[in-house]
């Protein structure tokens, strides 16, 4: 029941977000909507951070998944700091302070790399844990190619445009290039995450994997929504923000699910073991 509630939470949040966004738009138009979407962006980043560090808290130093969740939590904190800095005039997207813009760009790149490291570590767990993925090598190959094609189709054109801007000397595009490349790699990593979740389906451990996969799929939807032509969507429907919220909330749910899974196993297994009795770390 607890895990089903966690899985349902991001969807309920998205419905509520759309309703409030439409209400804000009908009252005061773009200003109220922008203010609302910014505050909800901060809220979902905070929730994602809480989820990641809840997951970190149930592992010990040297545990593979602790490192993975630590990278994800660290990356989320950095992007949260960047978003908060944007409240200050110099750090705003159109701000005139070049040093402030460098800080914002550096934080964006750092965050992307940290999140990639976390997803990379999660995505290689199936191999370390000898999980048998469904479909064998050929199944993995088919899903991997399909995911790579989708990732390139969605983020490739944007990455190429930002690369051209960077080549013309627009250094503010650097973070967008890095972000696009990281997006492509991260989206490709959906394959092992998804197949791990499918392989573990029906088991307790499957929950965090399924919810992390849902988070990555929501980022894919975010990229699709963000690449749509302006004016294609109703003005009162900030679809990219809906999917951003969905992605961050699924990360929150995944972190909390990881926390509850470990505590449930511990309860089922009896008293905790003294640290000195443990064997060597897997890593």
């Amino acid at each position, binding site marked *: 029941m607890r895990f089903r509630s966690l899985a349902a939470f991001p969807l309920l949040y998205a419905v509520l977000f759309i309703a409030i966004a439409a209400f804000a738009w009908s009252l005061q138009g773009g200003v109220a909507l922008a203010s609302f979407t910014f505050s909800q962006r901060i809220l979902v980043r905070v929730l994602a951070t809480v989820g990641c560090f809840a997951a970190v808290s*149930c*592992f*010990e130093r*040297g*545990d*593979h*998944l*602790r490192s993975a969740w630590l990278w994800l939590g660290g990356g989320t904190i950095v992007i949260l700091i960047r978003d908060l800095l944007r409240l200050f005039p110099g750090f705003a997207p159109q701000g005139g302070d070049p040093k402030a813009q460098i800080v914002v760009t550096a934080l964006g790149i750092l965050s992307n790399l940290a999140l990639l490291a976390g997803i990379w570590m999660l995505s290689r*767990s199936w191999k*370390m*844990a*000898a*999980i*048998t993925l469904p479909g064998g090598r050929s199944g993995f190959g088919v899903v991997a190619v399909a995911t790579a094609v989708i990732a390139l189709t969605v983020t490739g054109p944007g990455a190429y445009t930002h690369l051209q801007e960077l080549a013309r000397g627009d250094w503010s595009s650097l973070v967008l290039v890095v972000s696009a490349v990281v997006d492509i790699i991260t989206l490709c990593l959906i394959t092992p995450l998804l197949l791990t979740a499918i*392989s*573990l*389906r*029906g*088991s*307790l*451990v*499957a929950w965090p994997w399924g919810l992390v996969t849902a988070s990555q799929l929501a980022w894919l939807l975010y990229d699709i929504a963000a690449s749509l032509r302006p004016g294609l969507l109703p003005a009162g429907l900030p679809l990219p923000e809906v999917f951003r919220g969905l992605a961050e909330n699924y990360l929150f749910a995944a972190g909390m699910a990881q926390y509850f*899974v*470990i505590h449930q*196993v*511990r309860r*089922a*297994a*009896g*008293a*905790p*073991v003294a*640290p000195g*009795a*443990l*064997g060597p*770390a*897997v890593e």
Partner: protein
Amino acid sequence: MSLSQQLAARLAPYIGDFNAQMWIKSVARRELGLAPEDLTVRHLTPLIDGLRPFLQTLMGRSTAENLLQQIGREVH
């Protein structure tokens, strides 16, 4: 119920029935050179040692150790 079936039944709620059977089969072959159906209680310790790294990856060392000790007590 054979040892491999007992172990698989205890691991299945956590990692799924299929993965539990594959883990036991893989460890039995690699560590002991045996088929799962040939495993007996005297093979329990090397089996649990062989399962440990897999479980540690998914649950961390402390939780994996707790669970393996619990399973070891139950199938004795």
